[in-house]
Structures are given as structure tokens and as C-alpha cells.
């Protein structure tokens, strides 16, 4: 349950980037989250919508894109991607030799401003 502090950080980051570039209003913020991350999108959205009030982002919409985990099965060489938080078993050959890579999570991808 650290979504509130994450919402606070992302809001501050977006506002800072908007002002730095000479704009005065944020319309959209797009962020990416790794599927392995422990962050709940619903809770993040709730926190964001509460915090954005009376800021230059108050009319903005937060888009959250989940990034899948990926790996190559050591047994059958299949390239695997999944939106689950984690998987152990290769969905093709059912071997347990998947070593999943966890993507760099939680980034502000882009903002839309006027």
C-alpha cells in the first residue's frame, strides 16, 4: 500500500516537467508498470485522482500501461511473455527452467500538455 506516495511522486514529476517546458496544463499522463511490480493500478488511480485536485494536472487522465515479463525457456527455447506477476512453468513444454527477466518498473512514459 505505497500507492499514495507513488502517486505523489509521479504527479510532482509530471508537473515539474510540464512547467520546465513552459506549459501550464497537463491533460494526460502515461505511465508504465512492470507486471511483477507490487503496485495496484486501481489504488494508484484512486490516489492520483485525489492528489491532482487544485494542481495544473487536475483535469488530467492517468493512463497505466502494464509491461509484460519476458524470458526464454531453457528447455524448449520458446520465447515467453506474460502479464502475470510471475510464472514458474513454461506454458509450452511445462519445464521449470524459465528464468524470467523483470523489466525496469514504474516509469512516466509521456505527458500531454497545453
Amino acid at each position, binding site marked *: *500500500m*505505497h500507492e499514495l*506516495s*507513488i502517486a505523489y*511522486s*509521479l504527479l510532482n*514529476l*509530471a508537473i515539474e*516537467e*510540464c512547467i520546465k*517546458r513552459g*506549459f501550464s496544463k497537463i491533460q494526460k499522463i502515461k*505511465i508504465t508498470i512492470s507486471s*511483477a*511490480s*507490487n*503496485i495496484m493500478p486501481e489504488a494508484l488511480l484512486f490516489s492520483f485522482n485525489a492528489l491532482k485536485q487544485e494542481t495544473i494536472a487536475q483535469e488530467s487522465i492517468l493512463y497505466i500501461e502494464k509491461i509484460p515479463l519476458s524470458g526464454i525457456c531453457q528447455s524448449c527455447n520458446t520465447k515467453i511473455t506474460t502479464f502475470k*506477476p*510471475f510464472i*514458474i512453468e513454461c506454458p509450452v513444454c511445462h519445464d*521449470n527452467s524459465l*528464468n524470467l527477466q*523483470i523489466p*525496469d*518498473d*514504474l*516509469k*512516466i*512514459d*509521456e*505527458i*500531454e*500538455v*497545453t
Partner: protein
Amino acid sequence: MKIKIAKKIFSENDKIADINRENFKRHKIFTINLMGSPGAGKTSFLEKSISLLKDKVQVGVIVGDITGIDDAMRINKLQVPVVQLNTGGACHLDANMINNSLQDLPLEEIKLLFIENVGNLVCPADFDLGENIKVTILSLTEGDDKPLKYPLIFKKSSALIINKIDLIPFLEVSIDKIKKDCLLINPTIKIFKVSCKNNEGIENWVKWIMTMIL
């Protein structure tokens, strides 16, 4: 107008974590971020470890809790420098909290720093504190299904401590399952079985730590 940002939202935390890391490096301190559920035995494990370690290396401790000073009082009895950090509600420690509490520790007198995180198998995994390694402690009474239910913390840890192994005759849990699942999530994780009740396995762990810091 669209603007590409591609900035980490944790960048504020990560910046301070890097400052902590530099600070530890400058003082030649090896830092361990100890994580685990409430009641897993984090403080007992620290007490047992410190008893064996303190003649070999200068130890310091930061203990994190929502509130209270119980843990710091326990560690204080071992006569090593300790700081109690109260998060006042936060379910994890972050780099800034560590940065602030470093001011209260005699860093030049410490070579091994334990940071006992807030009891939680979820949130602490997301926050870099500037530590050298993360270690997770899991007690048998929590059940053998935990690695698969909370994979991230096991994926990010360099070592897993399986605690309370003296209770195995009374429990329907499989140590083998914990080990097997954990190794599937993280093939390089080092696993130690310990009992803080009868000291079994503590020496093995202490030996390993000594190899890490020398």
C-alpha cells in the same frame, strides 16, 4: 502537445539510495536490508546473528517499525549502535528515512550495518535503500506457499533465511517446497535453515556473511 519523459517514478528514492550507497562505500560499510513478515523472527535473528558477529566485526543496526521502540531496546542490550526508525504508518522503509537515520549512527565505527525493514512481504521489495544485499526471512509457521505468492521479494533477495525449523515436528509444512519454489524464482539465491530458539544454522549464516564482507 505530447512530451516524451521516460523517467523513473522512483527516481527520487533511487537518487537518495545512491547517496546512501556512496556513504556506505566511503565508510567501508557492508549493508544488509533484512525483510520479512511481522513475526517471522527478524529481530530474534538479528540478536542471534549479532551475538556471534560482534566479536568479529563492528556491527550497527537500523530497525524500522510503524511505531514503538521495542526492537531497538532488544538490540541495545547487545551493546551495538542502534537507531529505531518509526515510519508512523508507512509499510516499508525508503532511502530518505535511511539517509536521515545515518546521522544518528557512528558510521566510522561500523563495518556491517543491518537494516531491519518493516514487517511486510510486499512493499519493502520495491524500495532500494542503498544496501549491498537484500535478505528475506521466512518462518515455517507462515506456510510453505509464500515464495510463489510473493515472488518479487524472493526474486530480489540474495539470501533466504528459513526460520523456526525447530517447529517442524508440529507443522504441516515442507522445507523442501519452500527451497524448491524459491530456487525456481531465483536460481542464485542462497538458502539457510535456522532456529533462533536452539541456534541451529546461525553459525553457517554468520560464516557466509563474513565471506561477503571480507
